[in-house]
């Protein structure tokens, strides 16, 4: 008997995981999937979206932070026997977590996945979804390999994912590390289904509460779509050439500059007469030292709302002043295509955010 290919996907209810499920199941009609899920409601939402594809998915309840992923012993045994690949996409992507909390999910959780993978005799691939920002405070061209830890990190998320990559590389498994850039929206339509730090920062700008940001107008700012990332993960997970490779799922040289991204946002907001009437100035892009002075002054004055805003921004905004270009040669070689240009989806994404009031209109309607 030929056993069907069976993939375990963690993070299946996330934006990327959901896309990976869709692409893998659509591409391989014999494929079956175990989806590690934490709560039923999120799973039912994803299953509804997947439609008939979800018939080939077995949701299994588990928790990355628990030993053995918190799986029922029989379920775990079944996965061990059947899994031919694991796509580990689950992560705590909050930038504001303490290092201990970030590690609990992202690093220890990855160790738990590796332990399971080691018990899978049929396993052909451990596909680890990482972040391009494991590069942390590094600047310049970032290669598709382990670039070391000397630069340090902006937040605990970056560090915990770097440490997880280290575990994957030394696992002895047939791994592929896929580093995603910041996800701006679902696809070229600009639809935003999951609000992240970029969207929250844009909201602050829209509300006229962003006085300045550190960086340089010419610094590249890498953002991609979820469909690009999930499509690439689906393909590379089953690509034998990808074994032992680290790839950047990033815009790379197709990234827009910080100045272009901020100016486009301003122009979109300003096209709305009510917003234009407020005469909010364009956010200034300034040197990090001036930004730090502003940040310190606001913190010193103790104004609660503005202080909270700057604190929330502080977990990622230093990246704006750390210009980096993510190399994409390996990804391009394996995928046979150039990364998408941020220009294609940035404007539609901004218009979507504005039209839906950052998702609040949709919530209200629902």
């Amino acid at each position, binding site marked *: 008997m030929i056993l069907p290919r069976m993939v375990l996907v963690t993070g299946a209810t996330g934006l990327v995981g959901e896309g990976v499920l869709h692409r893998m199941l659509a591409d391989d009609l014999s494929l079956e999937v175990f989806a590690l899920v934490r709560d039923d409601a999120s799973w039912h939402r994803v299953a509804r979206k997947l439609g008939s594809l979800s018939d080939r998915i077995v949701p299994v309840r588990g928790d990355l932070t628990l030993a053995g992923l918190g799986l029922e012993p029989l379920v775990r045994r079944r996965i061990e026997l059947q899994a031919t690949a694991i796509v580990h996409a689950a992560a705590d992507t909050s930038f504001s977590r303490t290092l201990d909390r970030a590690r609990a999910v992202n690093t220890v959780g990855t160790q738990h996945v590796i332990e399971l993978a080691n018990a899978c005799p049929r396993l052909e691939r451990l596909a680890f979804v990482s972040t391009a920002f494991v590069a942390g405070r590094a600047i310049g061209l970032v290669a598709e390999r382990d670039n070391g830890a000397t630069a340090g990190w902006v937040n605990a998320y970056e560090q915990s994912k770097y440490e997880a990559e280290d575990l994957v590389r030394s696992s002895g498994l047939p791994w592929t590390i896929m580093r995603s850039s910041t996800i701006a929206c679902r696809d070229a339509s600009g639809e935003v289904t999951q609000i992240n730090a970029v969207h929250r920062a844009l909201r602050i700008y829209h509300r006229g509460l962003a006085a300045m940001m550190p960086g340089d107008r010419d610094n590249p700012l890498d953002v991609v779509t979820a469909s690009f990332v999930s499509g690439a993960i689906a393909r590379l997970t089953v690509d034998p050439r990808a074994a032992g490779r680290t790839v950047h799922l990033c815009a790379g040289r197709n990234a827009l500059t910080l100045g272009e991204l901020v100016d486009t946002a301003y122009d979109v907001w300003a096209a709305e007469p009510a917003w234009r009437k407020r005469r909010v100035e364009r956010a200034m892009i*300034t040197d990090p030292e001036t930004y730090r002075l502003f940040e310190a*002054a606001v913190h010193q004055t103790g104004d609660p709302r503005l202080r909270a805003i700057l604190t929330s921004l502080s977990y990622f905004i230093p990246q704006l002043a750390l210009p980096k270009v993510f190399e994409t040669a390996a990804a391009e070689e394996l995928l046979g295509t150039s990364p998408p240009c941020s220009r294609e989806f940035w404007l539609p994404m901004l218009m979507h955010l504005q039209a839906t009031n950052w998702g609040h209109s949709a919530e209200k309607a629902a």
Partner: protein
Amino acid sequence: MTRNDIAKQMGPAIAGIAYAFPAGSRSIAELAGEAQLASSAETLESFGFGRVHVAETETPYELALKAARQVLAETAVDPETIGLIIYGGTPGSMSFAAAADSEGAARDLCTLSRFKYPATRLQYDLDLPNAWTFAVDQLACTTLLAAARLARSLCLTEGIERALCVSSEFFPVNAGREAIFNCTSDAACAVLIERDGARNRLVSATNVTKGYYWDVDAMRDEIVASYFPTARHVLLRTIADAGWAPDDVDWIIPHNVSLRSWEILSSLVRLPKARVFSENIFRHGHTLAGDNFINYRDALDGGCIKPGQRVVMFSYGFGAHWTGVAVEA
């Protein structure tokens, strides 16, 4: 054209400046002890504030009159040549009340006492028979800069030879002594503008008013966020309208708000903070009446500003107004 050639040009200029502070004053620690501050004394001291002037017995009008008399005495101009008085600051009957009586005086604004105008009384007390007299209002800390700009324009368009701009303000009794992290003084300031001056010429003036921020209490965070980008914009436009480049500016004469904010703003316009005349922030705190002119006078008297130097004054006023004036010393 060299700097000396420009200095020889004639045009609307500051002929004199005088100011008056009340006799009383408080240290920041004393204000904190009297529960007059919203922030801690340590925070405000770290922002550069040391002492503020507090009117206890003096009325705003008395301070205005004192400053105006002084500028007229120092400049010794013929009173008949003053064709304009522009007053700004404490309104109507409140100008004639000491702090302890200001609540009652404020109630009197709802009576015919509303028409007891400090501006016209100044014209009478100073004996300036030819002065067209009016007041400007709702400009907060940009009042005197706006008055000077208006005087400059009227000198140019109506041929007025000299204009006296006077502002006198006290901080409302029940408002404490802090306005968005700035410690405030009571004071009056008088500026004499002349149509054909060679020194201290008013070269350009810029103002941006953003009515969206009219409600200070409700828009506090938005005001803090908008302050810097708009201030930068106004400073750069004032400099450009004067035909200068930022590097040409020898001095920024600030309104006396937190030193920290000036460090940020000078950095944003890429001017060394050493060019910001900031020593009065510690000595006087922030006056609503006319920080810029008080500072300009002190910088002249102290020999900081030399003839021909290029100076930019900047102030922000609730409401919200961002105002810049370029002066060639």
